[in-house]
């Protein structure tokens, strides 16, 4: 009985976790919109959606890895590699169908992910070390491949570039792709054994082995999936921005991890949802756009961005602590309820 009460509260809190970000988003859009209504215009919202689509997709992929108590720092390099590779093929071989190029980029990303996954899952290199290494290595390959070359919008077929800006029913195509990825991954993590096993591995790797989970295979799979998503994000990047060189997405890994963390995914694995991560990505891009719109001094933007990021994490934590305390008190009042029959425990 009392446990049920507690559970309902816990449930509600679990939902509140993501609600916190939703509230933060509301405040951000409310305040910015009040100061400058054009922020809430259709065109502006469309831009924000477009801008966050790529980071959100990367955050979703990263979540897959992070829940297993690993991390993939190399995503930014994979995005760079895939963006450049895709753009180069499109520019140099105009005959190749766009769909094939996109598929190729996804496969390229998956291969990079497989390298990471094998290093971490099979060779037991700690993820941070392995992916820090491949962060440098993949970027090195990218530079060597590019050799100072830049692929411009003019070199790529119109049909491909329009993917980056086209809308379906008023919603940008890229945002729809990201949403589809989000829902698919979200469902997998929540409702498939394989998904739940990822959480189990992150929660306690030793227990996962004893429970007969194929830990190695699952970890490799998480990295491969993340790599594939990074590959997809890479072509999306090329389509969206048109100009591609070897430096694409440099440094983005920290943005992605920030989104994941702000989204309430535990950095040490085992808990958190992709929805939170995607909202985190939306919040972070929202902040950047809002600062630009609010005419905040360019020099102060970085600082404010950092401050807001910390504020979001702190808020989330304080909320969680409060609720935990309330939960304990609540139990107290229930246990000291004089009318309650003793239950022999």
């Amino acid at each position: 009985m009392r446990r049920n009460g507690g559970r309902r509260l816990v449930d509600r809190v679990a939902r509140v976790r993501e609600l916190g970000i939703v509230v933060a988003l509301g405040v951000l859009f409310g305040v910015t919109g009040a100061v400058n209504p054009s922020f809430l215009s259709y065109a502006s919202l469309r831009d924000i959606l477009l801008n966050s689509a790529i980071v959100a997709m990367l955050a979703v992929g990263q979540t897959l890895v992070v829940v297993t108590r690993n991390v993939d720092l190399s995503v930014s390099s994979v995005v760079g590699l895939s963006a450049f590779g895709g753009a180069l093929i499109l520019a140099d071989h105009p005959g190749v169908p766009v769909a094939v190029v996109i598929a190729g980029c996804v496969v390229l990303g998956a291969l990079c992910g497989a390298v990471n996954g094998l290093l971490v899952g099979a060779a037991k290199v700690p993820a941070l070390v392995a992916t820090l290494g491949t962060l440098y290595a993949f970027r090195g390959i990218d530079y060597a491949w590019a050799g100072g070359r830049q692929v411009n919008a003019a070199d790529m077929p119109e049909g491909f570039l329009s993917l980056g800006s086209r809308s379906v029913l008023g919603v940008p195509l890229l945002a729809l792709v990201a949403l589809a990825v989000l829902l698919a991954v979200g469902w997998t993590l929540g409702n498939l054994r394989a998904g739940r096993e990822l959480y189990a591995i992150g929660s306690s790797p030793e227990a996962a082995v004893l429970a007969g989970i194929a830990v190695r295979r699952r970890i490799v799979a998480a990295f491969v999936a993340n790599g594939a998503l990074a590959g997809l994000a890479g072509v999306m990047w090329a389509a969206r921005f048109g100009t591609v060189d070897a430096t694409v997405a440099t440094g983005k890994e920290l943005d992605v991890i920030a989104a994941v963390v702000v989204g309430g995914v535990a950095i040490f694995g085992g808990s958190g949802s992709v929805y939170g991560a995607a909202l985190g990505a939306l919040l972070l891009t929202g902040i950047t756009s809002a600062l630009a719109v609010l005419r905040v001094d360019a020099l102060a933007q970085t600082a404010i961005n950092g401050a807001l990021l910390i504020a979001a994490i702190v808020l989330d934590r304080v909320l969680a602590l409060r609720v935990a305390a309330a939960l304990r008190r609540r139990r107290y009042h229930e246990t000291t309820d004089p009318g309650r029959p003793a239950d022999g425990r």
Partner: protein
Amino acid sequence: MDETPVLSLSQVSKAFGAVRAVREVSLQLFPGEVHALAGENGAGKSTLVKILSGVHRPDSGRILLDGEPVEFGGPADAQRAGVAVIYQEPTLFPDLSVMENIFMGRQPRGRLGIDRRAMRASAAELFARLGVHLDPDQPARGLSIADQQLVEIAKALSLQARVLVMDEPTAALSGTEVARLFGVARTLRSQGCALLFISHRLEEIFELCRRVTTLRDGAHVASDLIADITPDDLVRRMVGRELDALFPKQETEAGEVALKVRRLTREGVFTDVSFEVRRGEIVALAGLVGAGRSEVARAVFGIDRWDAGSVEVDGKRLRPASPTAAMAAGLALVPEDRRQQGLVMDLSIERNIGLAGLSALHRGPLISRLAERERARDWAVRLRLKFGRLSDPVNVLSGGNQQKVVLGKWLARRPSVLIVDEPTRGIDVGTKAEVHRLLSELAGGGVAVLMISSELPEVLGMADRVLVMHEGRLVAEIPRADATEESVMAAATGRSAA
């Protein structure tokens, strides 16, 4: 019996480096029979279990399933072959709900992925069978050791295995839960399941099992029918010598009040707890699992903050929520969860023992490795620790030996008030007597001892006074003379108020 064993080990050996944990041991598990495995700490019981479950691959020897040799490449293989295992140390996923812990990898499937409703119902059913009040949706994080153990048991039951291996499942449990567990075990037995049971509580072995295999130093000593031997025989087989009386608490004059707890309350956990412990006294804190005993100990020692009340040591009030202050005042706490709270598993034996008294090891600004080693060696010998080298990490020690390291770490501080939470959990009979002698000696030397124990014989044998908790309140104080199983249990279950 002329049946073939479901699962048997034939001449298996396993060594870890220089340690030969298991040496050419054979074991046969028959359907419909509970088989006990007995032996001192470090005798190789858990290692044998892990060989059975595919965690370790034997260096030599064979595993036979239904008479056919098999190879277990990992726990998954064993599980598939119908072997369910409750490991000595609970291995749960703290972030996941209790029901997911039970059904991980085997969740019931519905049309849209996992069928949570079915999973919840099955979990609830299992708990009902065990008589446990746990919410299937509750996260495993924060469960007491006992509750964790119960979840492990539920998990093993849910496998509906042909062979159920239980490595000290009762170590953290009190009488009621043990009785329930035995009920379930008997049912399984009658359904033709083969069970392997490990416990350091000999009476449990005699109550439940039909056959017992004894190991000593990794080697097979004997396999007997329980009916043919006495507890003393069993102890002799395990230890290789005669043992003295088990609970030799010496009579001592109780001195001044050393620990005084007044109206201590932590909301939602325990309420209005007051008691005193005098020098030379051993006071037991008894109660059912979950009564809040460990929580009181944690608060007194400063791990958790209390909401109201006070704690005094030798007349001086303690600063709340500061273990450092408590230690400075002469308090020591041997916690119940040795892996999480008692030991730093990656650190060596000597560093673990030294950790609680670093200042004593300093020579000038630097640590003296010599002093550290001396201190560790001293206590390792006194506690009869079974170890390779003092620089080995503690995680290679057997469960009972790990417990000894925790004890050594705190005793080395020479505390004036010693709180021990389940001090003999997982400790073999020989050493248990040793620990009891030690506690009694300490009390004799003027230390005030507060002992939390779920083992009634231990409580009755050791305590000068018994405090009993029920649902977060102190409900009875029973002097040694009046303390009987009945009186303590009555108070613990809330049937009588003192």
